[in-house]
């Protein structure tokens, strides 16, 4: 290699190919047959896969049957909630009835109390008018009484001398004891009458005071009036609260009734309460146009070919559902329909089609 040079090498003849044994040839033949089968199977599989993907990407009539068992968790949960709602509704009804009765009672009581107020006012007025009339009369009589009593008092002073004289006469034997006792008793009677007269005077004065001034009696009446009004006001508050509570309860009842009505429109309600086997299917929103009550349902082999009519759409439920796409395995939003199936086995298919056969055969 020390001198650069141009060299051409002799042509190399190829070695003869190794002889293949019979065993090798047989293995190779088997391998090739197997390889062809597998590769064609893979090719067909890939093409079928691509076709299915494309088919479900553009198809707008498919829906996925859903089998709800009686012990379905969602149905049971739904049923439990429904029972609870109904119980609540019943409780609310009882509560409303009770409140209504109480409210009526309170309204009546309030009306009675309110009716008392003018009567009381009238009584007070009447009494005032009467007092105004009788007050001066009594005052006059009181003055007359005082005058009379003063006169009586003067007469009683004379009776004291008379009594002394009686005792003197008795002592002197001028009169008998019986006469003396009779005379003294008469004097005491006069004194007693004077005392009564004095009492009557004081009472009369007191009475005059009552009738001519605002005394405690009138204050008591006013207090009674205030209590009456307070009680009416309290009743008003209670009535207002009760009415609000009643309204709230009524609203709750309406809401519960609406919820129960909606629940009756749910497949889970039907599934939980129905006696017969019911068939449902999930329809993605993309295929909503195809979902109509009475629309025919087709079930197909290999999820797309050789289709046959297996029933119709019986009912459409508007509540939103989401499921995993049977082919793409992604979450899909949509709604549920109830199927009327003549071939119940179609409920077990991965997909069925609405309206028409997806590939026209």
């Amino acid at each position, binding site marked *: 290699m020390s001198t*650069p040079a141009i060299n051409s*090498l002799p042509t190399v*003849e190829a070695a003869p190919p190794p002889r293949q044994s019979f065993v090798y040839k047989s293995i190779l033949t088997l391998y090739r047959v197997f390889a062809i089968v597998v590769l064609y199977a893979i090719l067909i599989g890939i093409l079928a896969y691509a076709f299915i993907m494309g088919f479900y990407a553009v198809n707008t009539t498919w829906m996925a049957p859903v089998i709800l068992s009686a012990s379905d968790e969602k149905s049971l949960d739904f049923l439990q909630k429904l029972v609870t709602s109904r119980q609540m509704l019943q409780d609310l009804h009882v509560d409303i009835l009770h409140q209504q009765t109480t409210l009526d009672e309170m309204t009546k009581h309030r009306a009675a109390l309110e009716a008392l107020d003018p009567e009381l006012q009238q009584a007070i007025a009447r009494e005032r008018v009467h007092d105004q009339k009788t007050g001066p009369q009594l005052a006059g009589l009181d003055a007359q009484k005082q005058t009379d009593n003063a006169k009586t008092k003067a007469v009683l002073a004379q009776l004291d001398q008379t009594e002394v004289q009686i005792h003197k006469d008795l002592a002197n034997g001028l009169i008998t004891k019986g006469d003396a006792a009779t005379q003294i008793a008469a004097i005491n009677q006069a004194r007693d009458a004077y005392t009564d007269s004095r009492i009557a005077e004081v009472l009369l004065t007191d009475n005059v005071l009552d009738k001519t001034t605002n005394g405690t009696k009138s204050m008591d009446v006013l207090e009674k009036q205030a209590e009456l009004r307070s009680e009416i006001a309290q009743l008003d508050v209670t009535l207002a609260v009760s009415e609000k509570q009643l309204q709230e309860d009524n609203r709750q009842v309406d809401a519960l009734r609406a919820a129960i009505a909606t629940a009756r429109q749910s497949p889970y309600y039907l599934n939980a309460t129905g006696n017969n086997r019911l068939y449902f299917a999930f329809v993605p929103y993309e295929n909503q146009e195809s979902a109509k009550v009475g629309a025919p349902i087709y079930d197909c082999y290999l999820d797309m070919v050789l289709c046959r009519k297996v029933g119709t759409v019986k009912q459409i439920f508007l509540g939103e559902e989401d499921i995993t796409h049977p082919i793409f395995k992604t979450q899909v939003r949509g709604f549920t329909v109830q199927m009327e199936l003549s071939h119940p086995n179609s409920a077990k298919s991965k997909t069925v089609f609405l309206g028409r056969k997806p590939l026209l055969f």
Partner: protein
Amino acid sequence: MFLCLLISVVKYLMGLILKWSFPSAKIKKDYTWQPTVSVLLPCYNEGETVYQTIESISRSNYPAELFEIIAQDDCSVDDSFEWMQKAQRDFTNIRIRTGRNGVNCGKARTVCNALQHSEAELIISIDSDCIFHPDCMRELAACFSEPKIGSVGGRVGVRNPNDSVITAIQTIIYYSAFQLYKIPENWTRSVCCISGCLFAIRRELLLEIEPAIRGRNWFGIPVNQGEDRFLTHQTLLRGYGTYINTDALCWTTVPTTLSVLFKQQLRWRRSIVRDLFYTLRTLPQHVWKLHPNTVLTLVLTPLGAVVALLVVVTMLTSDPLAWTGPMPLVTYLGIAAVLSWVISKHSVEETLEHPLAFGAYVAWSIVSTVFITPLALFTMDSADWGTRTKQEITTQEMDTPLVNSGN
């Protein structure tokens, strides 16, 4: 499956760590050790490219008196042989010998035929469509100063990174494979596949392996593909070390069209599967003789390619739209952003104009895994190279009429 994926990720991470933190993972090169070298250049239907390849070797800074080129044409149906002879006449500063096979017999046997004419200490087998860095030969030879090193490879860069999305993808794959993925194998001197683009091996070792290369067959059908993987594997089994010297650089033109890439990848996948079967058949021998890292790489890496098929099939059936989600795309775009930045810093020639084109690797990885692996598994009897068309070229179509000047 998970283990295979984990090992791939771990290998890249280990490559990164070893590259940055363990200079001892690199081989000790002795540039004063300059053995005689024969550059074997098997050629089939390369046309003018073979001339450019020889031209690039002629610019090598390895002492001209210490190396020669032995160019062997494998019965090209184009003007490749004429271009080889033209190079022979034009580059007189180096010794070039040209030869031709009697019949077309594939790259591996063409290398063996060329080997018959070599007496050098070191053989460098190269692809006839590669362009070599002037330091390449020197770098490869320097690694053989370690006596236990049997084969050394270089880094293969992409000449046409911006030709298409496909070449952009391959640029990133090639770069990460040589700069990261193979580094842990380098660490234990047990690279499991040295690229046939640039493959240096001791001549005595190659002569020892040659009968095995010539005798390679699959149930009696001669095997022409995957000679690089086979050679590397045989080197390891004979107790020698293998190494990739990323400073030894050559440039290759990667496929620009999907069909050519598909055929190339199919050929590679066949050789991976064949190598896996061979490893499994002789597993005890491997376990006793080779470093555990080597055994793991030889078993799990190709197994990963087979298992990936199951992963993708499972994914497509259980969650068909998963691969259309943002995660794979974001992952690959992230890899593209990082690696393209690294490439632009450290290998300016391979700078990508549109690095985010690597996002298309999501689609390619599906195609590659779903189609190539089963096709490779069931076409093991195919000897088709795939990327070299057997087209007839008339003399009128040649730009320059060449004269065979062989003496």
